[in-house]
């Protein structure tokens, strides 16, 4: 089922959480809402769920407005960041809850509920734990119970609020893969909120980058990563080096910022005429000559070698090179090297973090 949010505005007192936001989620896709805290991503998710009523705008499921439909009757599945399991109920009772509270004439028979819960627990790989209480489970298991509980009522859309936010890194990565596979299996229109760019880029079909109550960019992970639409998206997705300067050829004193991702530098021996530019040089200079400086630190215990270069004005430039290149060039701390960008993106300096 498709979801449309049309011109949604939501204020909390003076604070504008969502500012005229429109979004179309295609049927069957897995969409990520990505942004820093306070960007409005969770509020948008809660508006879609019906937990918040928008001040303006409309929410439509398959073209039909559900704005005035109570959360109870929207038919959404929702997974909370801190699981929100019912702690006095067993896993089985938690998962069966949505079925047991149905009005009498819609409620499945006891045996059917049992079968459905068993089926769901197998789906989330928790069969055998039906009799446990939430406090007897690990974080990852709890989150999977929460997911089974949300799926039990056969929702039309699945909404997940920072689903892996409270878990440690390894469990997170596992659950992330698993969610991706689960989604391929059940093909349910799903929206999840995250502040973790890796999570969004790895799991989602499309990513919505949000900032200050507005959508900055919507696109596939490749689109938002390789062709960021704004300085904010550039900055937020992955590490990047910022170089202040004026836009070349622009007579007005418009400030611009040049961005270079660490892996888009190549490392060179400094040329004979070591005329290094300072970090405030223009984009032109940066492109032709790069940045020369002394290597401060090398982190080589990972897939890519990270190098910190201290430029003439003292600011640090982050460079990433492959292990092979590292072996070939053999740079070491204290030496002077030049980092020349292969690719520079320039944005007008019209935003602040």
């Amino acid at each position, binding site marked *: 089922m498709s979801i449309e949010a049309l011109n949604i505005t939501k204020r909390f007192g003076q604070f504008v959480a969502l500012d005229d936001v429109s979004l179309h989620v295609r049927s069957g896709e897995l969409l990520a809402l990505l942004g820093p805290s306070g960007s409005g991503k969770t509020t948008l998710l809660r508006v879609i*769920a019906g937990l918040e009523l928008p001040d303006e705008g409309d929410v439509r499921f398959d073209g039909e407005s559900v704005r005035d439909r109570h959360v*109870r009757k929207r038919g959404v599945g929702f997974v909370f960041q801190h699981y*929100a399991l019912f*702690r*006095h109920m067993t896993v089985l009772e938690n998962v069966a809850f949505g079925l047991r509270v149905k009005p009498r004439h819609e409620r499945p028979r006891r045996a059917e509920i049992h079968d459905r819960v068993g089926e769901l627990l197998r789906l989330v790989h928790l069969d055998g734990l039906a009799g446990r*209480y939430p406090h007897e489970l690990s974080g990852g298991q709890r989150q999977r119970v929460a997911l089974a509980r*949300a799926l039990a009522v056969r929702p039309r859309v699945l909404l997940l609020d920072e689903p892996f936010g409270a878990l440690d890194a390894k469990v997170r990565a596992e659950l992330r893969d698993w969610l991706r596979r689960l989604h391929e299996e059940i093909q349910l229109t799903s929206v999840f909120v995250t502040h973790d760019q890796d999570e969004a880029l790895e799991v989602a079909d499309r990513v919505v980058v949000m900032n200050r109550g507005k959508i900055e960019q919507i696109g596939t992970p490749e689109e938002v990563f390789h062709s960021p639409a704004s300085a904010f998206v550039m900055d937020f997705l992955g590490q990047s080096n910022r170089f202040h300067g004026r836009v070349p050829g622009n007579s007005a004193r418009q400030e611009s910022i040049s961005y270079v991702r660490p892996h888009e530098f190549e490392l060179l021996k400094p040329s004979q005429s070591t005329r290094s530019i300072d970090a405030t040089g223009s984009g032109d200079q940066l492109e032709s000559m790069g940045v020369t400086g002394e290597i401060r630190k090398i982190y080589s215990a990972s897939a890519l070698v990270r190098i910190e270069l201290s430029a003439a004005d003292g600011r640090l430039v982050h460079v990433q090179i492959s292990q092979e290149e590292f072996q070939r060039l053999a740079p070491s701390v204290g030496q002077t090297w030049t980092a020349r960008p292969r690719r520079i993106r320039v944005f007008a300096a019209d935003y602040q973090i």
Partner: protein
Amino acid sequence: MIRIGLRERCVRVINRQHSVLPGFGISLGLTLMYLGLVVLIPLSALVVKALGMTFEDFWQKAIADPRVMASYRVSLSAALVAGLVNSVFGFILAWVLVRYQFPGKRLLDAIVDLPFALPTAVSGIALVGLYASSGWLGGWLEGLGLKVAFAWPGIVIALTMIGLPFVVRTMQPAIEQLESESEEAAAILGATRGQTFRRVILPILVPPLLTGFALAFARGLGEFGSVYFIAGNLPMKTEIAPLMILIKLEQYDYHGAAAIGLVMLVASFALLLLINLLQAWTRHRSST
């Protein structure tokens, strides 16, 4: 949580040599001495006094005497009813104080403590003034055929007033700790407000409600000051057990007073034990 689980307590005792906080020995020693002086020694003196008489004598004075027996009934029934009334209305009051914002909320919150702060005799006199046949409410109620002051309902009203803060003050923190997310989760899963309350909220609040009830009930059993004025103290009808102890003492019947005291001590102890067991059972089901 008000009570720490037994297992956690054991773990703390076992781990004491690793504790960064010094002074386990001295603080435990002080605690035991204080408890002994203030609670245990007076209670054991009562037991010793009561044990000083023959069983025959004890039976005659504390059990077989119909007037004493009637006083147990009055005390128990009035404290029980007052405790139950407070459990219902104290719960609602605590809910309103935690969940809603309204003008005068802080004042209302402060009023809840009044029965704690007021000398109980003052409460008793105030209630007599209100419920006696010459009082505002008393005259009107008597017109309806309901006698409150100097009767059993009067005792219940006095005990309700005295016990209210116990229920409200135990429920408030528990209600504050409820996670709003569980209620949202229940609503999204299709539960109505009623179902959410019955299946999600209430089970979590039963243990603190039992605690509140136990405190209010125990307080009601021992209450003397306020009841003394409103009960009328009619033998066989509105005499409470603490009053019987006073009457025995006034007759220099120390053994009789100690015997009644012992019965009340055992009864209170048994009730507290029962409620603790009930709590342990419900808490086990809802522990985090």
